[in-house]
């Protein structure tokens, strides 16, 4: 994760090929295979119980990807837990994995971490964001004060105490966190990758800045003219756009739907059955029903049921 900065270009329209018109960045769900590979460092956007890129997450589980380094959001959700439960994850980089009141800690994550099955890159949010800042700024590290006097430099040897060259203070040096790809979920984008959120977009912009490439699921694909109507809302420029109505389900999508607590409860109970009793059956049933059997996102939504989806009311 501390690769030196790259000078090759994975830009939205990698130079070279000529095209008579502006290129569309819209991808089909099946093309996710071109984005995701075993062993990658994958950043997952959103926060806690909101706005995780669940089409991409379920795709990784469906394909049985392995050895992923997952950069969860600063308050990582059960998107991370699902990937850990499915055995896709080697290492987790984020300060928290859970769903607050719905699950104070992700059950698969806790079990795997306690058993040493995954590596946890221990950090708090300040350190986590410092590492992403370093990557976005093409710097090898970023200083931060949070962590001085704590156990963090012991439990995470990547966090090094150093003496600042200006005032001589002791600070923590956080190495760059550089995801290969950031997987985000947003309100809308045009086919050229102009992404707009409803609300703050959490730290998705920083994940975009830090990552090599960014794929954004959107509730709606809108016209370029619609984007130009409110350019101040454009938060980032994606490298790929995936049409994804209800694509954050079972998590919430600001302005569109609230979290599906019943579905999240189903997932949490499956995790707890495994973590507490070693019983993996409920999770396997969950995976069969919601991940393996549905061939694509719309089939997943059908498995969830339209009645349920439409009940995840707006305000």
């Amino acid at each position, binding site marked *: 994760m501390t690769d030196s900065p790259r000078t090759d270009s994975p830009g939205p329209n990698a130079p070279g090929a000529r095209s008579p018109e502006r290129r569309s960045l819209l991808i089909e769900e099946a093309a996710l295979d071109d984005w995701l590979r075993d062993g990658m460092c994958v950043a997952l956007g959103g*926060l806690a119980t909101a706005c995780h890129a669940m089409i991409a997450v379920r795709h990784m589980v469906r394909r049985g990807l392995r050895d992923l380094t997952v950069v969860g959001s600063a308050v990582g959700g059960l998107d991370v837990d699902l990937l850990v439960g499915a055995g896709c994850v080697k290492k987790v980089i984020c300060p928290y994995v859970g769903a*607050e009141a719905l699950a*104070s*800690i992700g059950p698969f994550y806790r079990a795997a971490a306690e058993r040493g099955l995954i590596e946890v890159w221990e950090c708090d949010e*300040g*350190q986590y964001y410092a590492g992403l800042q370093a990557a976005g700024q093409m710097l090898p590290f970023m200083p931060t004060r949070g962590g*001085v006097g*704590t*156990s963090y430099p012991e439990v995470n040897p990547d966090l090094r105490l150093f003496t600042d060259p200006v005032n001589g203070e002791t600070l923590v040096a956080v190495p760059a966190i550089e995801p290969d790809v950031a997987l985000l979920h947003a309100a809308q984008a045009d086919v050229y990758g102009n992404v707009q959120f409803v609300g*703050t977009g959490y730290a998705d912009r920083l994940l975009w800045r830090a990552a090599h490439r960014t794929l954004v699921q959107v509730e709606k694909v809108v016209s370029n003219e619609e984007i130009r109507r409110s350019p101040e809302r454009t938060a980032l420029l994606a490298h790929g756009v995936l049409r994804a109505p209800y694509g954050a389900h079972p998590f919430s999508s600001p302005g569109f739907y609230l979290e599906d607590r019943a579905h999240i409860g189903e997932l949490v109970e499956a995790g707890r059955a495994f973590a507490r009793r070693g019983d993996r059956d409920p999770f396997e049933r969950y995976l069969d029903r919601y991940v393996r059997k549905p061939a694509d996102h719309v089939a997943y939504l059908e498995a969830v049921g339209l009645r349920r989806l439409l009940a995840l009311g707006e305000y």
Partner: protein
Amino acid sequence: MASASAPPALDAPPSTKELMAAFLARDMADGEEIFVGTNLPVVRAGALLAHLHHGPSMRVMVAHTRTNLHHTPVMEYFELLTDWRAARWAEAYFNDSEIVTYQKSRRDSVFFVGALQVDPFGNSNLIGLGTDQRRLALRGPGAIATTTNAAHVRRFYLFVNEHSPRVFVPRCDFVSTVGWAQGGADARRRLGLPGGGPRYCVTPLAVMDFEESSRRMRLHSVHPGVTVDEVRARTGFPLLVPDHVPVTPAPTAEELAILRRRVDPQGLLRR
């Protein structure tokens, strides 16, 4: 969302949680920045009570928005950090990464830190229990932003829901948030931490502070019906105890009315 149960009567005696909320509220000053956290009803109620009772110019941070609720009749309870319905009150949005990174904008902020373990100097642990980080006996929820925030904010409060020797330990297995480090009046300055450090540690039994010269934990007040000996027995290290330990003052009728009518009509503090 709002509970269907009727709001508690105003003349019912205060619950311990209401008492704790009122204690916290009185310690917060007008103009300060407060975080209305999720999943911590007492902390939420304390912050909002301060705002409504004596803090009309407080900056109220709720679910990635900043607002002022001084004239909002009844506070809706948002259980989840990302509940975007709270944006209906927003004067501004704030970005999760910016709020943690740009600490100077939070010089007036007060903050709350939970813990699996707390030591005699108010250092605390959310990482987990055990000796080897790679094989924790119990993985904690993690520090979230408490490490960085507690290093910088004006002051913070330790808040734990269990007062026992499991929580109050001579030495934390891991320290995720610095309180008064190894002790001494200038303990934090020596580490270069600009924030004011922990002022109080609030539990269901008592309130503790930190003695000024040693920065060791000291009993500040006991909640009604709790004895000093009980607190001592349930604290896993020697607590400094002054000759006279007052009882944590009860909320006034005005405070109770605000709590029960506007802040917590759902009655979360009475469960």
